[in-house]
């Protein structure tokens, strides 16, 4: 197979050599056009209609657990329409239609369509994604299909009035718990000088299959608020919203109220302060055990951006929660206090250092009850800390870049004697070997540890490590070659080793693009849980701009 790819690569390089020898100006212009072609998600306002179509063929050889291989998506396995891209002005007044559809008619497909009108500021986007995948990897398990469809409308009615709305539907079929949801939303915004005032409605309907123990129902959300219409030294925003949820077969209709007030002020060119006040309340809760029914939150933060390219941001957030205990006999009042400190520092133009720290403490924690109904202990982590350092170096005298990071994430419940820690270390680097060749390296290591009374060692923790080496070679103006090798290992409770090698070559000439690629994906499961597989994927894709 590698020989086959090498041969194809050789053919492409030879083809390029022939074209280069011809040296006609037309192909040079085409190459320029290909390089300046818009990114797939980009939009064009004016110009000629463009239609691109790509045909692809993909072959798979899978030995082992093919369902684990398809856990997120089922890739095409035969000749298929890989891409249709249309960018078509409908009239001379700026009305444009666009479409981009991937893997049409395949089990997993997706696309985006848009229509916009420059003069009137109307834009309609619709996005569709169908995913065919497995949650259960045992032989014969049901394949799930999930369809996500979202449409957004933005309309600038007048220079001061905007309407935003949309519709979203999610439909999951197969498996134990099929469900479907539909959402309609609309927000009207009116600019009044320095402020935007807005009001919105959001309606959601969610349905589980008959016989499910989950509750189907609908939720209506209304919102009223205001915010700054442009940037300024002082900014204030406020919002009130309510959610009413009706559940099938339940007498109560829980309602939530949210109130938010946010402020920002630039004291000097270097110094800013900001704050938030939030209130949340839940009424007519259906919960029969412990639940939070009210929260009052205040947060304040200061940021300094200035001397020696330093950015220091410090914040404090405190939240008082009304918490009904497990028997709903009394309301407890725990408090959550969070302190944050973020520092960014550039001692030299080519060096960037950052440090982040977050400390969270929960006071007056609610206790749980034992089976006899007596208060036992608290299950809530009293302390959680996050510490992160990152540094990057991109020297101007040598074409390399280096980034390294270290992160500690700790949680602790001293009353119970439980705690856990996750330490993550990472390193990434790139090197422009020549003007046409770039090499990359990235490494990640995560180690987990856990503490619980009576627990010997960390039998349930699985450390992990992944690293990847990659190279990109710009063979010519028209031809690019990329390859990478990735290994991801897990140790301890989970013992998996996955190797992925991939290579692809892309060649452009006139309005055509040819892509060839191979991926060799090998997963070894040393726990004997039969997750392993060995998959080879070969694909070829030919794209052309229709005349």
């Amino acid at each position, binding site marked *: 197979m590698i020989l086959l790819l090498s041969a194809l690569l050789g053919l492409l390089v030879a083809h390029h050599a022939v074209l280069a020898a011809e040296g006609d100006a037309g192909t040079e212009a085409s190459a320029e056009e290909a390089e300046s072609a818009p990114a797939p998600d980009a939009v064009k306002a004016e110009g000629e209609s463009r239609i691109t179509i790509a045909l692809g063929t993909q072959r798979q050889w899978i030995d082992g657990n093919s369902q684990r291989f398809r856990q997120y998506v089922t*890739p095409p396995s035969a000749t298929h329409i890989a891409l249709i891209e249309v960018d078509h002005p409908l009239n001379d007044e700026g009305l444009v239609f666009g479409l981009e559809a991937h893997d049409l008619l395949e089990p997993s497909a997706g696309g985006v369509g848009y229509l916009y009108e420059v003069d009137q500021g109307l834009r309609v986007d619709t996005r569709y994604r169908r995913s065919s995948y497995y949650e259960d990897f045992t032989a014969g398990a049901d394949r799930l299909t999930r369809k996500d469809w979202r449409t957004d409308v933005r309309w600038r009615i007048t220079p001061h009035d905007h309407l935003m709305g949309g519709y979203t539907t999610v439909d999951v079929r197969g498996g134990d718990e099929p469900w479907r949801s539909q959402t309609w939303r609309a927000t009207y915004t009116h600019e009044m000088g320095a402020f935007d005032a807005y009001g919105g409605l959001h309606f959601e309907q969610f349905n589980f299959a008959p016989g499910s123990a989950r509750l189907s129902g609908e939720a209506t959300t209304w919102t009223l608020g205001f915010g700054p219409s442009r940037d300024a030294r002082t900014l204030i925003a406020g919002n009130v919203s309510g959610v009413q949820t009706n559940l099938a077969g339940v007498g109560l209709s829980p309602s939530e109220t949210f109130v938010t007030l946010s402020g920002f002020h630039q004291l000097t060119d270097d110094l800013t302060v900001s704050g938030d006040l939030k209130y949340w309340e839940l009424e007519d809760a259906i919960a029969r055990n412990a639940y939070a029914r009210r929260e009052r939150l205040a947060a304040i933060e200061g940021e300094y951006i200035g001397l020696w390219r330093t950015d220091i941001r410090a914040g404090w957030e405190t939240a008082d929660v009304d918490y009904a205990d497990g028997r709903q006999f009394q309301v407890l009042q725990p408090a959550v206090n969070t302190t944050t400190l973020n520092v960014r520092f550039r001692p030299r133009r080519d060096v960037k250092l950052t440090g982040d720290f977050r400390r969270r403490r929960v006071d007056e924690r609610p206790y749980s009850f034992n089976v006899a109904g007596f208060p036992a202990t608290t299950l809530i982590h009293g302390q959680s800390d996050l510490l992160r350092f990152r540094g990057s170096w991109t020297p101007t005298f040598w074409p390399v870049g280096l980034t390294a990071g270290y992160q500690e994430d700790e949680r602790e419940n001293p009353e119970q004697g439980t705690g856990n820690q996750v330490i993550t270390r990472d390193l990434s680097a790139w090197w422009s070997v020549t003007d046409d060749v770039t090499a990359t390296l990235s490494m990640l290591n995560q180690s987990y540890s856990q503490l619980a009374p009576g627990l010997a060692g960390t039998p349930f923790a699985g450390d992990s490590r992944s690293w990847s080496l990659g190279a990109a070679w710009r063979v010519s103006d028209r031809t690019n070659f990329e390859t990478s090798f990735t290994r991801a290992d897990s140790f301890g409770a989970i013992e998996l080793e996955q190797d992925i090698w991939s290579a692809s070559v892309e060649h452009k000439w006139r309005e055509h693009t040819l892509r060839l690629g191979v991926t060799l994906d090998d997963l070894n499961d040393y726990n004997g849980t039969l997750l392993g597989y060995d998959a080879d994927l070969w694909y070829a894709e030919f794209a052309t701009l229709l005349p």
Partner: protein
Amino acid sequence: MVALVAALIVAVLAVPPLAWSEPESGENPQAQYAEPDACGLCHRDVADEAAGRLHGAILERRAAEAKGQNCQTCHGPSQAHVENPIEVKTAWTPELLKRNTSAKMCLNCHSNQIPAITWRKGDHHSGGVQCWDCHSADRPAKAHSEFIARPNSSVCLECHREVEGLFRLNSHHPVILGTEQERVTCADCHDVHGRRSQRDWAQKCRSCHLEQRGPHRFEHGAISGRLMGSCLECHSPHGSPNANLLRFNSRGLCLQCHGDKVTHFPGPACWSCHEAIHGSNSHPQFLTP
């Protein structure tokens, strides 16, 4: 405590006069708008770069509505610059070049999508990221290039390289996928223009994972997000060596909080019995959905 901090916030915000600093109008020569076509006479290369782009087209059409649109919509009133191009810059160009004010020009038009206060309090603003660092189609970013409405996740990973390694682990959100196709983008979860509070995560996760949506008659306290980390208490959203993005394998996950259950039916994973672990409508111990 909340009341104390609330009073402090109100005091801080009340001290400065609530005068909104508007862009300067035509009160001084610096604030006079030039004719819309004036810019392209000298800045031919930039005008060519912007021509045919969506931004260029919108601004060109709006130039007919009001003098001062087109290039000056972002660069500010420029008559003084046209008259004396060597010594006088366009009115807002110095601010465009500063990281803490550069977004100001974009927000003049896009504030109904991204409120200025959201951006100014956001992590990307603090990190010195400018709008065109992500929305420019030509990378490294160019301010006048094609603008992308929704950059894909590869743009995010150019800076957040450490996350890429997590996406390669045994279970991960399907964002970057060797043999697979992107199913989820970073922006589906992250508020890239602002900052998502840890308290909002449960709501966000449930927007895709509706099957875990409540309310339930019997709630699992870890998930509410008011006192604990909500979904993130048990799941590592980028990637994990364990199945289903779990932080710890099997019963080790539950021992994070339920430390007294080390010897409680040892062997199987806790959710073999407590199968409705995200919340139940029929059983207080989550034994059935």
